[in-house]
């Protein structure tokens, strides 16, 4: 059950340069900025009302974000919906034979997450997330 748009993900080439627009020009508050080694990205979360902008800069060359940047350039990458129960929703998607990137949930920046395959959503990359009850200081290592 979808509750809200948790964030939209934007792939950027250079985090510092991107900050000049999203933080300095639009005035959005950066509430998290970290490099997640496991995922090979530097990520920043900026508050936008009751949603967020997630800026993603690849720090390796062989992950999805890097490949996106390589093939399409910078741009809007994904939309993430907050759900009540990501396990249950992923199970329902599997049952409907929806094409998935993640067959099982995993821990990401937004909590427990999974990605649908863009082919399942007409080219749009959709992430579902269930924020953790007690936000982990280091979700990447949980």
């Amino acid at each position, binding site marked *: 059950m*979808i509750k809200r*748009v948790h964030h939209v993900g934007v792939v950027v080439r250079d985090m510092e340069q991107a900050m000049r627009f*999203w933080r300095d*020009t639009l005035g959005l508050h950066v509430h998290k900025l970290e490099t997640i080694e496991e995922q090979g990205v530097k990520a920043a979360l900026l508050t936008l009302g009751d949603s967020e902008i997630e800026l993603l800069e690849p720090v390796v060359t062989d992950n999805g974000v890097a490949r996106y940047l390589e093939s399409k*350039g910078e741009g809007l990458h994904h939309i993430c919906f907050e759900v009540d129960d990501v396990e249950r929703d992923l199970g329902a998607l599997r049952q*409907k034979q929806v094409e998935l990137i993640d067959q099982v949930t995993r821990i990401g920046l937004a909590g427990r997450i999974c990605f649908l395959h863009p082919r399942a959503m*007409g080219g749009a*990359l959709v992430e579902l997330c269930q924020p953790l009850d007690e936000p982990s200081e280091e979700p990447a290592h949980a």
Partner: protein
Amino acid sequence: MPNFTLDHVIIAVRDLDAASADYEALLGREPSWRGSHPQYGTKNRLFRIENTYVELLALADDEKKRGRWSGPLKNFLEEGEGLYGLALGTKSIDAAVRELRDTGLPVQDPAPGEGLDWMTGARRTWRNAAVVGKESRGVRLLFIEHGWGTSTLPMAEPNAAEGACVTRMDHAVVLSPDMEASRKLWGTQIGARLALDRTFPERDRRILFFRLGDITVEISGGAEQTEEGLGKPDRLWGLAWGVGDLRATVERLRAAGVDVSDARPGIKPGTLVATVKGEHTHGVPTLLIEHTPESFRAESRAPQGRAYDNSAPRRAFAALGLDHVSVVTEDAAAAAETWRATLGLAPGDAAEPPGVAVRLVDVPAGNAFVQIAQALSPDHRVARWVAERGPGMYGIAIEVDDIDAAVRDLRGKGIYVSDPEYGVIPGTRVARIAREAANGVQVELVQRLPEVL
């Protein structure tokens, strides 16, 4: 300054029984109170709803019993029926009067009052104080503290199905020829929270929203202050009532012979509104408003909910929230079905706004919505995008509080932004930021214009 509530609104009527019958129909409720004011020479009917009560006030039948309130009421009624005054509630009238006087507002000494319900024999007491003379700018203002230990006013029992009766007051409208004077009265002296001060040159309107509890007092005037308006009094004008189910309410009212418009989408997203016409309102311009459950934006997201204090240093504009996320497709109907079937989101109807070769389907998702866009012409930028990059994620719309200020500010920082124009979504103005400036994201700024009665 005490936090005043809008305790009640007073409507002056000539024939109390006739007016009561009309408001019983309009509100879908029986009166909470059928009373008289022995010392004022007036009689009334009260209807308590969730967040305030409405008082229909008429002269007592016996002229000899008419007391200190009856003169002004008689004069008012000679001009016609209509909104007569606002009573602002406080927990301590003595403290309120002291503080109001400290701001330079002349207020009477608090005086005790009592009302008797002739049907139940119940007695209610209060202490109140009115603003003296012309200092409340033509709007009768009363401050009131209800008495302890006497009867409280019961809720007005519905006489109609749930959803089809009025549940709360949404806002009251004051017309002002001298906006700065009104702003001083409501903001500085009464101390109501200013939630919005916005000018709409294209509609020749400036609007101030002041909050009293969860009720808005909307002060409405011209976009430009005119010389002849300075010092002229305000006019307490109209009311907007909240209902649970507007279409059911409209149907019920029509069955009761009340002249009411069709329900139509309000300017504020997620609302439906209908106008009550004719004599049933007794001189009060009346709007019914429903905040629809499928409203895809929480009340707190609405622009008027974002209070700002003009005296505090602030940015040129504020980004209030994510308005929507655009995805582009070659087949909007098929895409809408995918979003429904896969994610369980309920798409709205497809729309083809005039003048733009695009088909749009909005998919509400809680705090924002997904907008599915399909170009209907190969020249449309969406068609070119799909041809180049394929269908999928396209852009985002960010709601701002002041789009003109935002465009000026961004241009001042060297960013290319289109001129603000009316958006395809009714009640919006939008401007697009060059994609190169926003890391390849199509960013649209959008300002939602508030509902105007």
